[in-house]
């Protein structure tokens, strides 16, 4: 791990300069903070319109069996296709091959080639065709073999799908889902291993969700399909085979999660850790390690990148006064940057420490397995950042 220690400590050095001035400001803000700390989150401005999805959030709890994320996505597709004859799936190898990652297993047999379409290798083409079908009353689910290949089609996602509702003054809606694995897989190099969360999340008109668990996968994909607007569903290849316990309610075909709402995966009081997709698992593991050292971390699973659940994040930060953001994507202009800004704007006076941003390294993904590991956040990176935020960082000599 020498490289990552290096990156983080390098960052710590530059932070420590800021810390001085930040501490000065903290004194100043102390007064204001006391006034604000009545706990109300009504000061938060949610600058985003959240169109109602066809579901309401309920709090489910009863434990039941385990399913993996692949099964969760597959069953969500299956149920939505069975419930709504206008829903259809389209993409490279989704039919006879059952999807490059077998997410569409069994769907061709069940729904036939009219509703499970194997496309030629034309991402720009089938994305545009999907948007057209959505203009005209169908609900396409467009699968990208990986989101890296959605780059060929991004014009239709941004300029066609995301903007048509606005440009037609609400006359056209585009109920389409773009889904597929996003972010780093394993050993597939720079052109297959990028996170596009911040790319899509920066565009008004799009909704962007990133499931972590099987519950997320089922609830968010179903919500995305039922949603009247274009939704980008960023899955993670390395999670497909991972199993999670799910309640009977989650398995019910009516189950659905609200887009725009984060989930507190673990409650805590000392530091808030935000994460999405695979990084949620890392954040939870980091919280377990921190707990052993007496630090109580609150883990927020963002679930939705756009709209971003600023209310939940800020409420948590107002409680813990410390924030660590975690993402696999590049740091610059990333999701962490946006979360940090939101907290600075709405809860600056509550911060007791500089916000810590853990992100992928600012380099194209290395092919070498050891470097690949170093280029994406690891659990220990999150632990160290949380300790720094709690002023519990070990000295350079003992960590290095």
């Amino acid at each position, binding site marked *: *791990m*020498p*490289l990552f*220690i*290096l*990156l983080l*400590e*390098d960052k710590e050095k530059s932070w420590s300069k800021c810390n001085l001035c930040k501490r000065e400001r903290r004194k100043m803000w102390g007064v204001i903070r006391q006034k604000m700390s009545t706990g109300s989150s009504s000061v938060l401005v949610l600058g985003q319109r959240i169109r109602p999805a066809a579901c309401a959030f309920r709090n489910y709890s009863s434990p039941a069996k385990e399913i993996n994320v692949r099964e969760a996505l597959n069953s969500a597709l299956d149920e939505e296709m069975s419930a709504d004859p206008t829903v259809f799936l389209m993409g*490279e*190898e989704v039919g*006879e*091959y059952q999807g*490059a990652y077998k997410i569409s297993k069994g769907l*061709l047999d069940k729904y036939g*080639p009219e509703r499970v379409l*194997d496309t*030629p*290798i*034309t*991402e*720009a*083409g089938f994305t545009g065709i999907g948007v057209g079908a959505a203009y005209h009353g169908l609900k396409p689910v467009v699968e990208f073999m990986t989101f*890296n*290949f959605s*780059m*060929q089609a991004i014009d239709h996602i941004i300029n066609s799908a995301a903007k048509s509702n606005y440009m037609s003054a609400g006359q056209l809606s585009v109920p389409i889902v773009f889904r597929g694995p996003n972010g780093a897989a394993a*050993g*597939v*190099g*720079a*052109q*297959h291993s990028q996170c596009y969360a911040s790319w899509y999340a920066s565009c008004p008109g799009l909704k962007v969700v990133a499931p972590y668990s099987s519950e997320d996968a089922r609830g968010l994909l179903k919500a995305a399909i039922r949603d009247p607007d274009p939704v980008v569903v960023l899955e993670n290849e390395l999670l497909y085979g991972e199993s999670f316990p799910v309640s009977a309610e989650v398995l019910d075909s009516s189950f659905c999660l609200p887009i725009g709402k984060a989930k507190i995966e673990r409650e805590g009081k000392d530091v808030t850790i935000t994460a999405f997709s695979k990084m949620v698992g890392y954040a939870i593991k980091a919280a377990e390690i921190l707990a052993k050292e007496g630090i109580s971390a609150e883990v927020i699973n963002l679930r939705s990148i756009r709209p971003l659940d600023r209310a939940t994040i800020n409420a948590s930060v107002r409680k813990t006064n410390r924030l660590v953001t975690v993402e696999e994507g590049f740091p610059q202009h990333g999701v962490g940057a946006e979360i940090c800004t939101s907290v600075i704007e709405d809860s600056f006076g509550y911060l007791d420490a500089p916000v810590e941003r853990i992100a992928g390294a600012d*380099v*194209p993904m*290395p*092919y*070498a*397995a*050891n*470097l690949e590991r170093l280029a994406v956040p690891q659990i220990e990176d999150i632990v160290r950042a949380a300790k720094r935020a709690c002023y519990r960082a070990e000295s350079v000599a003992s960590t*290095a």
Partner: protein
Amino acid sequence: MALWLRKSLKTINNFKSMMGMINHSSSSPSPSFNQNLRNPPVIFIDSPTYFSSHRYESTRAEKQSDSVYGSHCHAQVMDFPGGKIMFSPVMRFISESTQERVHCYQVLDDNGNPITGSNYVQVSEEVALKMYSNMVTLQIMDTIFYEAQRQGRISFYATTIGEEAINIASAAALTIDDFVFPQYREPGVLLWRGFTLQEFANQCFSNKADYGKGRQMPIHYVSKRHNYFTVASTIATQIPHAVGAAYSMKMDKKGACAVTYFGDGGTSEGDFHAALNFAAVREVPVIFICRNNGWAISTPTSDQFRSDGIVVKGKAYGVRSIRVDGNDALAMYSAVHAARSMAISENKPILIEALTYRVGHHSTSDDSTKYRPIEEIEWFKVVRDPVTRFRKWIENRGWWNGKLESELRNTVKEELLDAIQVAEKVEKPTIAELFTDVYDVSPSNLRDQEKFLRETIKRHPQDYPSDVPL
């Protein structure tokens, strides 16, 4: 299950009729190139002839074989941008298909005998033997690297088996000054140009000697020295790149051309269409070589397009095109040779559709028996093997025999096993390489990081991989 089998069998039948059972004695139509659309009669917008029609004077107009209006010789014609257009009283739609598919140029039959009447570019004994030994080398390289991946020594591999003739014969007909923009199934071009087995192994093992510094997946070769551009994982992006390079080469008057390779699947990407169109409009020296091998991972060509393959698309874009038996090294060699001289002397793009078959799985992440019948694979592997066919030809000429064959195979095998062992032992790229190639001059934060990294390693040498030099 039943569905894909049906489809696959349909494909095999198409292939058989396309490749095995062509009636060679029927004289193929003389290549009817379109009239020169490059230099249409100059028409000014206020010219009285613009859009005006008049009686068609000549009643002896050349009867084009593909004309659907041939019999209406008294029809009116119109000067239209691009050339004269004849009017017709008949409402007839151009058919989406022709009764007979575009013929496939072939020189050697399956037994390695030249077809009577076939015209081809002569190949000297020396070149023929180099072609053959390169094809064999490519085959052995694939077998050994594939095995190395199965043993977990490299992470990924894709073979070129079945497509050796396209690889080697096309490369043989080019010169090293021609810039190559490959997909991932053309390592043979690099082999022909002198990339050594050691160099191939270095890339696949991502060691210090790899020209890509270990930053790419295996088989994503690059060699500036050989004018061979980095293989891109993203399908079809190399096609417009080749056109751009060709445009530059035209400006430079280099007397060379750009050559790009891609699969049948790649032709569905917009990049293919933009590239052909631009190449035609800009009149650039580029050769498009499509390896139509029947499959794009599990997608058969019947799910990829409904045209008569790729060759007909060239005509639609105004690009001179030919369909070639890609498993016939002599036909490939001749077609690329002719294409190159036309491309350079006339500044024209040329499209070659090479019919072949992907005998191996798509890559080491694929099991193709799940979606295509084993008999289909076997048929192409045994009956239509391009290497065997070429071998028969050189044997018939007395240039080759069983003894030379076993010598060659043994030497190449040994050389390869050696290369792999060496590549595995060579250290990884040095630590300094972690900080290069993004910035021209390293910014201070990277310099600080490097310094800090080196200090950390000094303090904790045991945590540092021993095969990465400092």
